């Protein structure tokens, strides 16, 4: 194989998930009535904003060789905290700040703080106390959702303050601002992962923690930061979720964790750690969102949708595995 062909093939393999996304969009556009329109593509990007942001935090921890199962519940708790304070109906307290725009940074800070604190708690137990990330974050997944129920009493908060809800209504180049926030997050964290020592160290830690430690890199500190970031980013996802639904219900975000895992894996992040990029994860998120939208438009009987969703995700993962086989042959 000549170097140019090899280079092209490697480029395709590195970005396979993007090609899959384009392929899927073309197929859906041809076969599903009403799929091919700008509004639907904008919907795909908009609908993927919460899942996308949540997947960033999850990907950081997985790339570092660990796991965070609590992100879904953390997002729900952050959304509920924002909902209770800044919603005016249901259990919302209708807190008003003057000037009104202040509610945006305050609510955002609240969501990030809630998420960051739980992330720090997870990180402390995993990194300092040396407990299994799977067990600790599974426990957090349960108790944090329980806390949502406790503080809400099972009731919902609605009518988010217009100053915050503004992000869900206003559009820039056809996309709501929530989608732009998600895109900005991907750009910023992709740069952090690719261009900063912290990002490179996370990849190294995920690849071989002991070797990284012996190379003089502060493994524990980086890991704790990764957990705090995962929590804070999940808090941001919760903030977006509250904006998207104009409030919070006790079951808000249920099931997002599994979609986030699917997106991360489809996006090429290895569950063993040390491998993966955030642009790939974003493509995975868009792919899932494209599939969901297709299911919404196909009008299938309700009980078939989950099977089809699962099979399409499986197909995407199998294609990814096929990629690994080709890569091994090339090596």
């Amino acid at each position: 194989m000549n170097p140019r062909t090899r280079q092209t093939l490697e480029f395709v393999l590195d970005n396979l998930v993007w090609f899959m996304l384009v392929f899927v969009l073309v197929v859906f556009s041809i076969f599903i009535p009403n799929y091919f329109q700008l509004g639907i593509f904008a919907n795909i990007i908009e609908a993927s904003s919460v899942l996308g942001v949540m997947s960033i935090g999850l990907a950081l921890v997985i790339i570092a060789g660990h796991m965070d199962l609590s992100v879904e519940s953390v997002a729900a708790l952050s959304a509920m905290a924002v909902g209770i304070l800044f919603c005016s109906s249901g259990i919302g307290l209708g807190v008003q700040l003057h000037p009104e725009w202040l509610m945006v940074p305050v609510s955002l800070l609240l969501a990030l703080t809630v998420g960051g604190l739980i992330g720090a708690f997870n990180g402390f137990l995993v990194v300092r106390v040396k407990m299994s990330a799977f067990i600790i974050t599974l426990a957090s997944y349960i108790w944090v959702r329980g806390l949502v129920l406790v503080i809400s009493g099972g009731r919902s908060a609605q009518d988010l303050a217009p100053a915050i809800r503004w992000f869900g209504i206003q559009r820039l180049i056809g996309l709501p601002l929530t989608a732009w926030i998600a895109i900005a997050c991907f750009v910023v964290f992709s740069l952090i992962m690719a261009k900063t020592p912290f990002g490179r160290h996370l990849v190294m830690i995920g690849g071989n923690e002991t070797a990284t430690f012996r190379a003089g890199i502060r493994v524990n500190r980086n890991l704790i930061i990764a957990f705090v970031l995962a929590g804070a980013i999940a808090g941001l996802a919760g903030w977006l979720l509250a904006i998207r639904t104009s409030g919070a219900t006790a079951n808000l975000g249920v099931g997002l964790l599994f979609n986030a895992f699917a997106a991360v894996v489809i996006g090429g992040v290895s569950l063993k750690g040390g491998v993966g990029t955030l642009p790939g994860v974003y493509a995975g998120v868009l792919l899932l969102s494209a599939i969901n939208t297709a299911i919404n438009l196909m009008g299938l009987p309700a009980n078939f949708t989950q099977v089809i969703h699962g099979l399409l995700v499986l197909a995407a993962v199998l294609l990814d595995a096929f990629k690994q086989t080709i890569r091994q042959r090339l090596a």
Partner: protein
Amino acid sequence: MKRILLAVFGILALAVATLTPAFAQSKGTVYYLVPTLLDEFQTGSVTALELFLKQVGYDIKTLNADNKTDAQQSQMNDVIALKPAAIILAAVDFNALKPSIEAARAAGIPVVEFDRQITSTPSDFTSVAGTVEIGHIAADQAEKLLKAKNGSVKGKVLQVLGDPGDPYTLDIQKGFEEKMKAFPDVKIISLPAMQWEASNAGTIVADQMLANPDIDLIFSHAAHLSVAAVASLEAAGKKPGDVMLMSSNGAPVGLDLIRKGWLNVEVEQPLYAQAAAVAMFMDKVVKKQEIKPGDYDVLGLKSTVTKEAWGPNIKIPGAAITKENVDNPAFWGNQKPPTDTVKSVE
């Protein structure tokens, strides 16, 4: 010193005994197995059952199954071992709980079905609004709304179901579609909001408003799904009244949406009456006395007890809530529990 302490304890004991007559008069403990607490109807049902059962002399304890069938089966087994006066069951899964109901009754513990009807095995009493009937009422309202908008009963309806694994939503769908069959010019698009999650409903509405911009009416199977639907409509630049909306269960958030002009109709589940009916017949259930069929007044609603293959069954009609009657305190969504005391049926 000893005497003083004894006197203090004596006074305290006397005070406790006189100030808590419920303990002295309790007819026993009833366990309520609630399917989930992540939904306003279910949390409301706990409050209502506690209120009414205390009025007729029972203590009540609630166990939450978190929507897990296996957890509810374990709870049933545990509660059977505690030998309570009765078990009130709102089943996560209608069929899976059948063996547990039979086990409880075999152990001499009466079982009352609440809100979710189980017809495959006998129980001691069933109090339901009728999920299929909720679908029927919703269809009647859809008929009126479409006729008012389009001149005749025609148009496009988006039906946002709850989780397709929950028989509750499937029954509403069944009732709704059963009645809407009479109108062949109405196209119904049905899509599930997985796990009853609001943002899933929001996505469905956003997508469908693009694929089918001529949708006349959106019918969500729970009020909290309508909240997300409204958020999507708002994001798409729609104003109240541009698209007609209906939902079912009568939760507070639904009533708020009616007041704001977004929601046309909320089909209420008569939560207070359902719970009051359980309390009214609890003595008969516990004493295993016959419950006579016929019409009964439950919190002012005419309700009918029938003798079914699965035991005595009370069906309490749901009501359509619109802008005209939204402030009626009888609707549980207004969060004003009835002040009238429930009395046991003699």
